[in-house]
């Protein structure tokens, strides 16, 4: 049990402790939900502001991470609705990982994790959210359906499609990465 994680008799944790323990988690969750690197700092700040505003609603007998995920999810979704952010974050899904470098160059340089993150970024937001909730956060699908207010079948369908699309995107990116490497190796000097 971590320092902030809830137990039945614990009082509500302090904001400072929540921040210290879960800043990385919030940061990673926002990133997984497709928030651009350049926006992670501001949106993480926003998450903790909202957490503070709602801390009285937190049930210390419940785990903290799923509760925090709800804030991150909504902030990422709101952020995405702003056209300028939608373009940045979702406009060119796979290549958007690092717009400074060409995709092939970027992919050739990153490790497996970055490649999977790039593939994740190519997924539709709603599907990605279900996949992150289930496969990363290990939230049962019925609970996800309830939280998102969607039919159970829809939640399962999104998860299935997200997994298929993620696997396909990873395969595609690996292919590009290999092609890029082969191309460089093929240079005569």
């Amino acid at each position, binding site marked *: 049990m971590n320092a902030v994680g809830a137990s039945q008799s614990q009082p509500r944790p302090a904001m400072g402790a929540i921040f210290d323990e879960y800043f990385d988690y919030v*940061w990673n969750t926002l990133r997984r939900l497709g928030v651009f690197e350049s926006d992670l*700092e501001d949106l993480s700040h926003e998450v903790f502001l909202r957490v*503070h505003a*709602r801390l009285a609603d937190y049930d210390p007998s419940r785990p903290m991470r799923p509760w925090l995920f709800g804030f991150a999810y909504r902030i990422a979704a709101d952020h995405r609705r702003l056209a300028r952010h939608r373009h940045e974050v979702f406009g060119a899904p796979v290549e958007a990982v690092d717009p400074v470098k060409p995709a092939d160059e970027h992919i050739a340089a990153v490790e497996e994790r970055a490649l999977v993150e790039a593939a994740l970024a190519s997924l539709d937001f709603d599907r990605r959210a279900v996949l992150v909730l289930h496969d*990363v956060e290990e939230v049962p699908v019925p609970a996800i359906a309830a939280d998102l207010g969607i039919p159970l079948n829809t939640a*399962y369908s999104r998860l299935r499609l997200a997994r298929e699309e993620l696997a396909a995107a990873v395969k595609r990116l690996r292919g590009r990465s290999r092609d890029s490497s082969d191309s460089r190796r093929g240079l005569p000097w």
Partner: protein
Amino acid sequence: MVNEPMNPLDPRLLDALRAERAAPADARVRVRARLEAALPEMGSSGGGGGAGGAGAAAGAFGSRLTTAVALFLAGGVAGAALLSALSGAKPARVVYVDRPVPVAGAMAPLMLAPAPVTDGTPWSIARPEEGPAKAPRAARPADLHASRLAAEQHLLDAARAAIVAGEPERAVTQLERHRAQFPDGLLVEERDAMMVEALAKSSRTSEARALAESFRARYPGSLFTATVDSAVAPSP
């Protein structure tokens, strides 16, 4: 079907997905500093309080449409302000007009740090230099412009919804909260106009009339003048 067979993710993909990266240390320090500036209890052990404590639980993902509308409008207003700034024109007063009224109960929760709902002082149209001291600004206020504007709109939407719902006292509370959080906000003109209306409908007639008089002096030619005049006009 719900129980259709589903291929699990490749374990290697799963491991990569679950890998946590440490956030940049400098980002952590900056965010913490910004939070400490906004939330005095950040460093204490007592736990934060809720801002109003109202609304849905954090796990509920409702009110998306309302939020989308608010943010869409925020983008429009922010864009207008940006265009004005880029054109070098005299800074325009940002006003906030003609929006759909949110359905009561579907209001997005207020998401800012709690601020005192009222300090007990009577309402007045304060010029910026006369207003409450500014809270420490975040390190990158420009980046927060859109979210601040959206937060202002949330508060004013809540006030508008309360007026429409026939609960002007609740509107007064929301508007006081706006004044406390955004003493020099972008939407102070509409806030003050709405306050005249809310006070009048709360049968606080003398306060409403005094505020209306200040409003006319402060905002000559305001789009809201007719609304203000109407709010304090004697009943036929």
